[in-house]
C-alpha cells in the first residue's frame, strides 16, 4: 500500500504573529517557519503504518515556493521514502490545493491519504474533506486512532461530546487530530539521509490547476485587546466581586 501525506509549511507554533501596520495581512517575513504540527502527526502516522508492514511506500507532498523544500526535508527525516514539490509562488486556498492534490492522486494512485486536520495559519479545516469529495472517496476527519486492515481502514474520531469510530473501504482520506500520536524526534542519520533524498518538482500549471481564488482579502485586523483586570487578595474578595460587581454568580 502506498500512502500520500500532503504537508504544509506554516509560521512556527511558538511565534507570536503580528498584523502588518497597513492591515494587508500577517507579517510572515523573517519569522521561523515549520512543518504544520497536524501535518507532522500525519507523517508520523504514515511512518508507523509503514514500520508495522502495513504500507510499502510513504510519499510527502507540499505546494508552495522554493522555501517549502526545507519543509519537505524535515518530513523526509522521519524516514519518508520520497517527496514531491508542487511549485507555485502564489498562496493557494484549500479548494485549489485539493484540486492539485486530486491530480497528483490520479498519478500516484495511493490507497490512503493522511493529512493534518487544519493548518495553524489559515485554520480552515477544509483541504482533506475537499480532496475526499473531489476523489469521491470516504473521509475520516479528526482521527485519534487509525487501524488499517487489508482493504479497509477503521478510524476513531474526536467529535463534540466524545469519540466516534467509523470503518470505511480504501482508498480513503484521513485527517489527523492532536492525540493520534506523538511525533518522533528524527535521528541524526535520518536527517543526513533526508538531505540527499530526491525531491520531484512539478509546476502547478502542469497539473492544469488554476491558483486563482474567488476570495479577496479586504483587510486583516488585530483582535480587540482584552485589558488585564485586578488582583484579588483572597477567595472571599473574589466571590464578593463576582456577586456584586460582575454579577455573574
Amino acid at each position, binding site marked *: 500500500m502506498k500512502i500520500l501525506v500532503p504537508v504544509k509549511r506554516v509560521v512556527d507554533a511558538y511565534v507570536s504573529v503580528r498584523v502588518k501596520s497597513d492591515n494587508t495581512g500577517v507579517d510572515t517575513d523573517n519569522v521561523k517557519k515549520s512543518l504544520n504540527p497536524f501535518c507532522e502527526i500525519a507523517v508520523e502516522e504514515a511512518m508507523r503504518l509503514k514500520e508495522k508492514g502495513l504500507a510499502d511506500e510513504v510519499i510527502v507532498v507540499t505546494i508552495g515556493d522554493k522555501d517549502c523544500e526545507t519543509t519537505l526535508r524535515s518530513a523526509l527525516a522521519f524516514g519518508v521514502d520520497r517527496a514531491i514539490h508542487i511549485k507555485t509562488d502564489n498562496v493557494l486556498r484549500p479548494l485549489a490545493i485539493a484540486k492539485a492534490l486530486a491530480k497528483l492522486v490520479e498519478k500516484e494512485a495511493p490507497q490512503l491519504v493522511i493529512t493534518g486536520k487544519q493548518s495553524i495559519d489559515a485554520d480552515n479545516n477544509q483541504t482533506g474533506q475537499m480532496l475526499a*469529495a473531489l476523489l469521491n472517496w470516504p473521509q475520516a476527519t479528526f482521527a*485519534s486512532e487509525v487501524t488499517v486492515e487489508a482493504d479497509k481502514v477503521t478510524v476513531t474520531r474526536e467529535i463534540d461530546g*466524545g469519540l466516534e469510530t467509523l470503518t470505511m473501504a480504501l482508498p480513503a482520506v484521513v485527517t489527523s487530530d492532536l492525540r493520534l500520536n506523538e511525533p518522533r524526534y528524527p535521528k541524526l542519520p535520518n536527517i543526513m539521509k533526508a538531505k540527499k533524498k530526491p525531491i520531484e518538482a512539478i509546476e502547478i500549471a502542469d497539473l492544469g490547476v488554476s491558483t486563482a481564488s474567488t476570495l479577496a482579502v479586504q483587510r486583516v485586523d488585530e483582535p480587540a485587546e482584552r485589558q488585564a483586570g485586578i488582583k484579588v487578595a483572597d477567595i472571599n474578595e473574589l466571590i464578593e466581586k463576582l456577586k456584586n460587581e460582575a454579577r455573574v454568580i
Partner: protein
Amino acid sequence: MSVLVIAEHDNSELKSATLNAITAAKELGDVTVLVAGSGSQSVADAAAQVAGVSAVLHSDAAHYENGIAEELTPLVVSTAASFDYVITAATTFGKNLLPRVSALLDVEQISDVTSVVSADTFVHPVYAGNALETVQSSDAKKVLTIRTTAFEAAETTGGSASVEALAASDAVGTVTLVGRELTVSNRPELGAAEVIVSGGRGVGSAENFAIIEALADKLGAAVGASRAAVDAGYVPNDYQVGQTGKVVAPSLYIAIGISGAIQHLAGMKDSKVIVAINKDEDAPIFQVADYGLVADLFDVVPEMTGAL
C-alpha cells in the same frame, strides 16, 4: 437572498449550535433549515418552531441516521442548487460535512465566520484568533461555517415554518459507524454553558480534577481543560478549550492552574468575565483575567467551593 442552514441533531433534538447558525443566517436572508435524519420528525418540528425560520425541508432515511458526511453530501449539494448560501455551525459535524459540499459546488468555503459585513463579505479568525481576516467572496453561492460564540442563539419558539418532505438521495454505503463513546454528564455542554470551570497542568493529576469538578457542580458549570491537561491524560480531549479544541464564550470562565498559552486564550478570551487562579503571578493568563488570584489552587479552590 435565500439561506440553507444544515441542522445538526441526534434524531430527537436539534443541537443548540444550529440556533446560533440560524441567527447568522437571518442576517443574510430568508432562512430554510434542512433536517436530514432517520426517525427525525421531532427535530423537523422543533426547527419549524425556531423564530425566524421560514421553511423546513425534512428528509428522512435510514442512511441519514448517523450524520455521516458521505451520505448527507449528495442531498445537501442537490438541495443547495436553489439557495444563495449554505451554512452550518462550525462544530465537528459542520467542519466535517461542509467542505465536502463546498468542493462539489466548486465554491471556496469561508470557515468560522464571526461577523457578517455585507452579503458577500465576512470576518473570520486566522492564526488561532490572533488576526481577523475580512474576506469578500465572488462565488455565486456562498458556503460558510459559523463560529457559534459570535452569534446569539435564535429563540426556540415563536416560529411557525412549514415542514416540507424532501426525497432522500441514494445511499452511498462506503462508511459504517462502528460505535460512539459519548461523555455522559449531568453538567451543561461546554459549548452552551453559562459558566465554565477549567483546569490546567497545575491541577497535577486526573484524581485532582475532582476539586475542579466539585467547584463546577457547585456553580452548575461545565468542566473544561487546557491542552496541557488533556495531553497529560487528566481528562478526555472533548474537555479541551482552545484553538485545537472548543471555542467558548460563557458569562463566567474560571481558569485554574492554567498558564494561558496562546492556543488556550484563542478558545476562551471572548468570555464575558474571566477569573484566573494560579500560583505563578507572572502567568500570561492574568493578562486577560478580570479577576486574578495568586494562590495555591489546592488551598483556595476547595475553599471557594465551600464558601459558595
